[in-house]
């Protein structure tokens, strides 16, 4: 199993570097831009906080974009949320199906490994990729704060990163289950789902009737503006996320064990 895990990590390394460096560097640049925009931000903050439902959707009614934590929550929070969600989706949705899609399945399945061992190695690979992605981005953002020399509430920042990581795991769990279903490349579906989850969260915050159902989506408990305003812990959303993650992984194991493997 160790060999399969090592192979999977190497095969996904390029993806990890591209996505973590892109999202991390983008976040860093945005953080560094804060200083140059600080003056204009004060006027913008007033305007943005009076845009009704949209201000609420992006957290600008409760957080001032003129402060670093407000700026981070509204700008980098969105970039990291969407970027990390897309990365989690594309890594997980192909991790199982790629073997059959690329016809490498017969080679892998002819090695003395049970399907459970193969899937355990692949699931671990996804989890490790997400840990590394989060770590790289965290380091970029911390570097940004340091270079900027501005004070940032680190406890809230780390809470944000941990909840984003949980959101990534939940999305990956759903995509892992989908990946076990077929032997076809489903990259488009993965990316589409990531965008759909993000759109659902934004819509849920704009449309009052949808607000009470926000907890269903993976972005509900990872919302930067709520975390940085120290809103109440969204217990229901987190419980749903853990449930979805466990169900997704269990389904992947169950289904992968019972189906025929394509050549």
């Amino acid at each position, binding site marked *: 199993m160790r060999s399969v895990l090592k*192979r999977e990590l190497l095969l996904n390394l390029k993806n990890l570097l591209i996505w973590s460096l892109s999202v991390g560097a983008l976040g860093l640049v945005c953080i560094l831009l804060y200083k140059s925009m600080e003056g204009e931000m004060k006027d913008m903050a007033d305007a943005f906080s009076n845009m009704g439902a949209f201000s609420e959707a992006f957290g600008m009614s409760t957080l001032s974009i003129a402060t670093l934590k407000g700026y981070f929550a509204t700008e980098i929070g969105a970039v990291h949320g969407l970027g990390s969600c897309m990365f989690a989706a594309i890594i997980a949705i192909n991790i199982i199906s790629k073997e059959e899609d690329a*016809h490498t399945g*017969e080679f892998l399945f*002819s090695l003395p490994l049970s399907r459970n061992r193969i899937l355990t190695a692949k699931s671990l690979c996804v989890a490790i990729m997400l840990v590394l992605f989060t770590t790289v981005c965290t380091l970029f953002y911390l570097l940004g704060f340091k270079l900027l020399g501005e004070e940032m509430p680190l406890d809230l920042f780390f809470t944000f990163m941990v909840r984003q990581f949980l959101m990534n795991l939940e999305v990956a769990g759903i995509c892992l289950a989908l990946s076990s279903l077929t032997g076809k490349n489903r990259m488009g579906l993965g990316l589409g789902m990531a965008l759909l989850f993000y759109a659902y969260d934004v819509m849920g915050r704009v449309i009052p009737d949808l607000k009470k159902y926000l907890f269903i989506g993976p972005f509900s408990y990872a919302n930067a503006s709520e975390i940085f305003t120290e809103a109440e812990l969204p217990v229901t959303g987190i419980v749903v996320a853990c449930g979805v993650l466990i169900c997704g992984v269990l389904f992947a194991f169950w289904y992968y064990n019972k189906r025929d493997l394509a*050549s």
Partner: protein
Amino acid sequence: MKENVIEISHLTKSYGKSRGVIDVSFNVKKGDIFGFLGPNGAGKSTTIRSMLGFLKINSGNIKILGMDSIKDHEEILKNVGYMPSEAWFYDSMKVNDVIKYAADVRRLDCSKEAAKLCERLKVDTHKKIKQLSLGNRKKVSIVCAMQHRPRLFIFDEPTGGLDPLMQKKFFELINEYVAQGATCLLSTHVLSEVDKYCKNAAIMREGRLTMLETPHIDDETFLSFYEEEEG
């Protein structure tokens, strides 16, 4: 009397409403090179893939090396060298990495045997998989199937893409391993291979298996199995 290395009884596998194989039964004895003939889509690969646990069978029993193909799946694969009809590997890997990877998963040091096989088959181990032709990928597949010196070889159309010299070397290797106690199931379309190398043979047609009295059949008899199906 020699022991059975492969024992298949009443194997049936369907793909939804499509036929796979129906009530297939046969045994392969230790030390045999067993020819497995049949037209495309007759069910040869389905039988092989059922034996290896890639497919979930509908009914029947498969015993490989005295072990149950479902319960002892991992243990069976430790003792089997399988070469699929299409040799696909991870494109970005180098040949020597693929060969080492296959050995590492088995937790074996096969470097000596692999080096011997690569030399005899003239495998360029420093090339990337994506740079290889079908024939060269097949040679890598042969090395992966043989380097751990398995007790049973399962080859699915192994010689397609190999040049005549490599085909000769391939069969020389099989004969050497079989002389040392291995057994071989050889799925092929090439009657001359069965005639020259196999001790027993069976032919599949429309999902059903017929044992041949002798592997030394003439072209006309061989082709009649294909023609009848067309009719």
